[in-house]
């Protein structure tokens, strides 16, 4: 078995290759029974390949922080996102009937808000959680999907529950990434100020 230990500098092509392999190919079962001993310097060389790629990806991610990332508090939740959507896009389009007994939605205006929101799928999820299956369908009649059933089908979801589970997971994952980007940016800033302090002290 050849374990070479040349120097390794990651570049964008390497990262793309790792990304491609990570998102495709075979699954595997971890048995916890197969172990191999390798020289420590070989292990470190292998880690360097991975670390170089990870550092490149994270440096790009962290560099995105100032402009693209919203402020995220510790207790930022999907519910908060839903409340914001409800206040900003649903309440203004909710009206009382003349007899004041009932209310109705301006479906076409809410449909326009879905387009404006920036992430159409996330907006449909928040709307669906807010006003339910039937009303979401009424809104989607004003979009190219024409119905909630068509929308779910075109997106490859089995049903409303499947859609909600997947979208919730996606939103939470997005929030986690935002939080980590901020945390890493803070670490980076702290590291730089420590570095400056050391240089200043010399």
């Amino acid at each position, binding site marked *: 078995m050849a374990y070479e230990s040349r120097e390794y500098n990651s570049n964008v092509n390497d990262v793309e290759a790792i990304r491609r*392999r990570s998102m495709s190919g075979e699954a595997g079962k*971890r048995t916890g029974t197969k172990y191999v*001993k390798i*020289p420590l310097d070989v292990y470190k060389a292998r880690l360097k390949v991975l670390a170089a790629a990870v550092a490149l990806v994270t440096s790009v*991610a962290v560099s995105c922080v100032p402009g693209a990332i919203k402020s995220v508090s510790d207790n930022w939740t999907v519910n908060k996102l839903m409340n914001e959507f409800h206040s900003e896009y649903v309440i203004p389009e909710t009206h009382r009937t003349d007899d004041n007994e009932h209310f109705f939605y301006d479906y076409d205006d809410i449909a326009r808000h879905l387009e404006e929101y920036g992430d159409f799928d996330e907006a449909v999820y928040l709307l669906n959680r807010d006003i339910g299956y039937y009303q979401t369908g009424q809104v989607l009649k004003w979009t190219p999907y024409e119905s909630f059933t068509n929308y779910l089908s075109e997106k490859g979801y089995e049903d409303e529950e499947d859609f909600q589970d997947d979208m919730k997971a996606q939103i939470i*994952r997005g929030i986690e990434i935002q939080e980590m980007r901020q945390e890493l940016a803070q*670490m980076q800033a702290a590291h730089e100020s420590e570095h400056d302090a050391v240089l200043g002290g010399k």
Partner: protein
Amino acid sequence: MEKELEVITLGDKDYFILNEVKRNGVTYIYLSNVEDRDDTLIRKSSKDDDSIFIPLETEEEFELACLLLFRKNKRMK
């Protein structure tokens, strides 16, 4: 000095498990092909069976896996 590493088989290739990170019930493992050091990749545990490791689903998830490892290593330093 030697290091003992667990090996997982994907298809017909063996990979060292270099590192792993757990997050919200999902385990991400960072792999290096036993025969080819340039063949590095990431897998995650399946929802249905946490001993099965599957490809990541999105580019965002790839970024998340990288961020998790980067953060773990930063904290270890």
